[in-house]
């Protein structure tokens, strides 16, 4: 197949999943390995159409287990690699992610979160927050977790994800959800070939005689050595926590109530903030764009002045634990969630906020 020239910067109307796949090609992805699962199969489908005409390679693996281990191999060989799946498939990848974190291999993993547990539902959910931010597989490790809230961020975070993965030599997860994957919005796509690439010196590409063999492994049988590896990982996570926190604020300056939400929930909460302000309730939104590292420092600052926090998620209350840790008892933290693939409406969150407002006002009087 004849190759198409590199694409310039373009504004398009695209589905989240397709924007993410297109961004991956533009970001110079060398290889994609994946397995179909709703609601993210468009990623693999899009890539199987585009990659042969553009650059890189795409392979439909026999399972998510195989896909993540192909990622291990190709990343270890120095490639810029990506896989994507949805919740049950991401669960299958956890073993591989633990190995990848330990062997310190850069890669980008995308979870288009659907409702669980179990086979669950194909509707959008945020039920995988714990799995995403606390490690997910065995052992002490973290993934850098990026939480897009628009089709634009679905594309942008692919570029950012590759940069972070390569900078810190580790797996980066984009935690989206079914609605973000399926919805269409305008997206400003970066020019293809704009992200620089170098072949890492540690990659296994054949040993030249002037050096020792490169070994990609997560096996360190001596506990002293294993502890050292752990300490190195933890030191890395500490730097990430200091340097890579990202969040967005909306009307937090004078807010009595800080609503905390990420991804699709944050879009809905933004509307709630508007509705609340129309009613004279001073609400503001803090939207973490990175879930690990978490904007704990900023939340602690906001906790000094806020009357209360309301954490909103499409789960039974997962991120709220991190919000509570950050608030550290300075003020009350409430939670509103819907589960199993149900998306809360801006109005029902507003009702919750109004209940909290009444309670706080009554307490103050």
């Amino acid at each position, binding site marked *: 197949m004849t190759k198409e020239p590199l694409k310039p910067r373009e504004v398009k109307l695209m589905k989240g999943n397709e924007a993410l796949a297109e961004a991956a090609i533009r970001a110079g992805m060398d290889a994609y390995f994946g397995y179909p699962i709703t609601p993210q199969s468009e990623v693999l489908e899009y890539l199987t159409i585009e990659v042969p005409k553009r650059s890189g390679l795409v392979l439909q693996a026999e399972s998510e287990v195989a896909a993540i281990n*192909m990622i291990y191999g190709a990343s270890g060989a120095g490639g810029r690699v990506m896989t994507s799946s949805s919740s049950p498939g991401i669960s299958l990848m956890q073993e591989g992610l633990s190995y990848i974190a330990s062997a310190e291999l850069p890669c980008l993993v995308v979870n288009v979160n659907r409702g669980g547990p179990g086979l669950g539902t194909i509707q959008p959910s945020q039920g995988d927050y714990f799995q995403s931010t606390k490690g997910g597989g065995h052992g002490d490790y973290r993934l850098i977790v990026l939480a897009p809230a628009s089709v634009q961020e679905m594309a942008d975070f692919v570029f950012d994800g590759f940069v972070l993965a390569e900078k810190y030599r580790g797996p980066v997860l984009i935690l989206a959800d079914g609605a973000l994957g399926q919805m269409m919005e305008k997206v400003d796509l970066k020019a293809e070939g704009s992200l620089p690439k170098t072949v890492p010196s540690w990659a296994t590409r054949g040993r030249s005689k002037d050096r020792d063999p490169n070994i990609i492994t997560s096996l360190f049988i001596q506990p002293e050595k294993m502890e050292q590896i752990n300490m190195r990982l933890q030191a890395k996570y500490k730097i990430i926590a200091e340097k890579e926190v990202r969040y967005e604020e909306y009307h937090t300056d004078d807010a009595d109530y800080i609503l905390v939400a990420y991804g699709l929930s944050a879009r809905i909460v933004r509307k709630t903030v508007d509705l609340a302000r129309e009613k004279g309730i001073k609400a503001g939104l803090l939207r973490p764009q990175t879930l690990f590292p978490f904007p704990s420092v900023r939340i602690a600052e906001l906790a000094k002045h806020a009357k209360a926090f309301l954490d909103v998620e499409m789960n039974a209350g997962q991120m709220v634990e991190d919000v509570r840790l950050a608030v550290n008892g300075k003020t009350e933290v409430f939670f509103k969630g819907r589960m199993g693939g149900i998306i809360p409406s801006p109005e029902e969150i507003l009702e919750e906020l109004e209940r909290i407002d009444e309670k706080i006002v009554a307490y103050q009087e």
Partner: protein
Amino acid sequence: MEDNLVLEGLEVVYHKPDTLTEAPFHYCPGCGHGVAHRLIMEVVEEMGIEEQTIGIAPVGCSVFAYHYMKIDMQEAAHGRACAVATGVKRLLPEKYVFTYQGDGDLAAIGTAETIHTVNRGENLAIFFINNAIYGMTGGQMAPTSLCHQVTSTSPYGREEKAMGFPLKMTELVAHLPGAYYVTRQAVHTPNAVRKCKKAIRNAFEYQKENKGTCFVEIVSNCPSGWRLTPLDSQKWLEENMLPMYKLGDIKLPGKD
């Protein structure tokens, strides 16, 4: 090594290949792994491809294969060597890639990866060490354990109706169109070693010609797991393993 005895005026007729490191093998006395490692590395050296070869180590006794093989290597999760090898080979199609896997890794936990890698005809070599037991974890039953074989998890013998039959992975993958060259060898006698080395060489040569998957089973022994002396283990291999796992080529190029 510095403390090597230097014998003046003698001709070197046999030496350790430079593609093996100085690390002494940790394998039990009499185990076939060391011979298999050496044969692969001899072939790599003889073909002059050590700078273009990437090996994938399994989980099992040979988990530390990368301590001995002086080439770039990756250590895979249990059973995933073929998937890891696929990732490497797809990214670097001009390089030589092989996996080195035991029977638990390849024929139990990694069955799906093995079959699909061969079915895609990935242009790489799979070296499969079959000793009918899980050596590293202390002699548990393997998918290739023989009927009535006593292991630490089949203490009354492998009863096939409850525990399944010995799995002939090599015959199984030979049916797949992606398999180009499939053979079963052994390393228990000098003659077997010579034939085995030839098979390993074939696997690399075919990879050079981009022919598809080459699958070399090496029937081997496990004196510790079998609770036998090294010598008795070779006898047991001949008497028990070989009738089930017959040596020879199973699929040859052009003879499908």
